[in-house]
């Protein structure tokens, strides 16, 4: 067994050709998933059971099953159903990219909405009560008091979820997409050099994780700058 450095230098640029797809999967499903999470959160805390109950079932199902199974159900499974093939969503669900986005967004939406709920529940009741005493409506209390504090509270957990979403994008390689993971698997199938290729890909993923964590660390610091004690 030997370590082939020429192969590493050769395969890194090839794998980096897939970074665009990896980042597209990450940012698109993060945006859609976060929007979905906000809708789920509002339904969940609405206090109406017919809105809260479906979101609880949704979250239970999507957090209780493997993301790989969800991807397979959407990509391989849905075309079995005739009404899916006739629906307006077919152009999206026909493509592996669309399926990956749908699966990742639905999955991350369930996780993020629970994170947001944790943030909202962490807001001191006294503050919203004070808002009510000042005559703010429920909507204004949510927008001006609860939301800003809740966002700050759930940022650390949210950044962890962004990292796990980034890790999940690698599963898109199982439905024929050539993201970084998909390209790496192709190279390994051709050269049979798993160490060189997979270890260098690990380094690339670690750098992306590091960038995500640093970015969120910076945002957190900025958002709590009013709390930081002056030296």
């Amino acid at each position: 067994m030997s370590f082939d450095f020429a192969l590493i230098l050769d395969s890194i640029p090839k794998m980096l050709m897939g970074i665009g797809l990896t980042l597209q999967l990450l940012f698109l499903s993060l945006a859609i998933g976060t929007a979905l999470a906000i809708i789920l959160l509002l339904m969940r805390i609405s206090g109406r059971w017919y809105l809260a109950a479906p979101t609880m079932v949704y979250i239970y199902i999507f957090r209780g099953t493997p993301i790989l199974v969800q991807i397979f159900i959407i990509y391989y499974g849905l075309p079995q159903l005739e009404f899916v093939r006739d629906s307006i969503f077919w152009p999206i669900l026909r493509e592996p990219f669309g399926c990956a986005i749908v699966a990742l967004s639905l999955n991350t939406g369930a996780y993020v909405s629970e994170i947001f709920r944790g943030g909202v529940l962490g807001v001191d009741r006294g503050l919203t009560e004070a808002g009510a005493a000042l005559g703010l409506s429920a909507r204004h209390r949510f927008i001006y008091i609860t939301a800003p504090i809740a966002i700050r509270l759930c940022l650390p957990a949210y950044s962890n979820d962004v990292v796990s979403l980034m890790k999940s994008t690698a599963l898109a390689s199982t439905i024929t997409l050539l993201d970084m993971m998909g390209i790496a698997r192709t190279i390994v199938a051709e050269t049979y050099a798993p160490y060189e290729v997979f270890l260098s890909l690990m380094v690339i993923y670690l750098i992306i994780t590091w960038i995500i964590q640093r970015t969120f660390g910076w945002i957190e610091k900025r958002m709590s700058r009013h709390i930081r004690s002056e030296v």
Partner: protein
Amino acid sequence: MEVLTGWWDDFFWGSLVVVELFFVALFLTVLFGLIGAAAKLSNSRVAKAVASGYTIVFRGTPEILVLLLFYFGAAIILTSIAQIFDPAVKFVDFPPFWAGSLAIALIVGSYATETFRGAFLGVDPGQVEAARALGLSNLQTFIYVRIPAMWRLALPPFGNHMLSLIKDTALVAIIGLEETLFVAEQAIGYTAKPFTLYLVVGMIYLSFSTIITLSVMACEKYANRHLETAG
């Protein structure tokens, strides 16, 4: 459900493989988590550095990448060892069960490291001091004072780790272990009903997650029974 005729037993054995994989990986996860936490809490700078390297790498790279690296990497090492003894050997296969359980356990173990470390530091120092004052030895303090307090703190996050563990077992189908997802793929080859069959896999996993969630809730209730107030 007539699609499942003739496949029930395969799904049953597949689920059994999932359960086996789960328990083997769970044991290894606890082991790696405890070793990692001990290393992080130790005074040795080398041990600390190795443990932080471990958590950074395994929490920052996609699970599927670690799994494939282990599976193909181990096969290469085994092949080159076998070739020392018998140059005619072309390829030695590493059992996917062990590659899978090791990879999953190392990934979830890196999360468990942080959980155990946090639980150890979360024990009220006053209790430890009280144990010292009563003349308990280090070992006695650890067994009678620290562990009962620690597992109460570690239980809720550890429940989440167990959920990640059971969901990660689905990935091992990618390297050809005959668990439920793999069974479904084979059944689809005959019946051409991917949606129904993957849905069955999803339901199997959902029931496993439910069992784990309920058991953790029961354990938490038991662990915190002294805190319950009389109704």
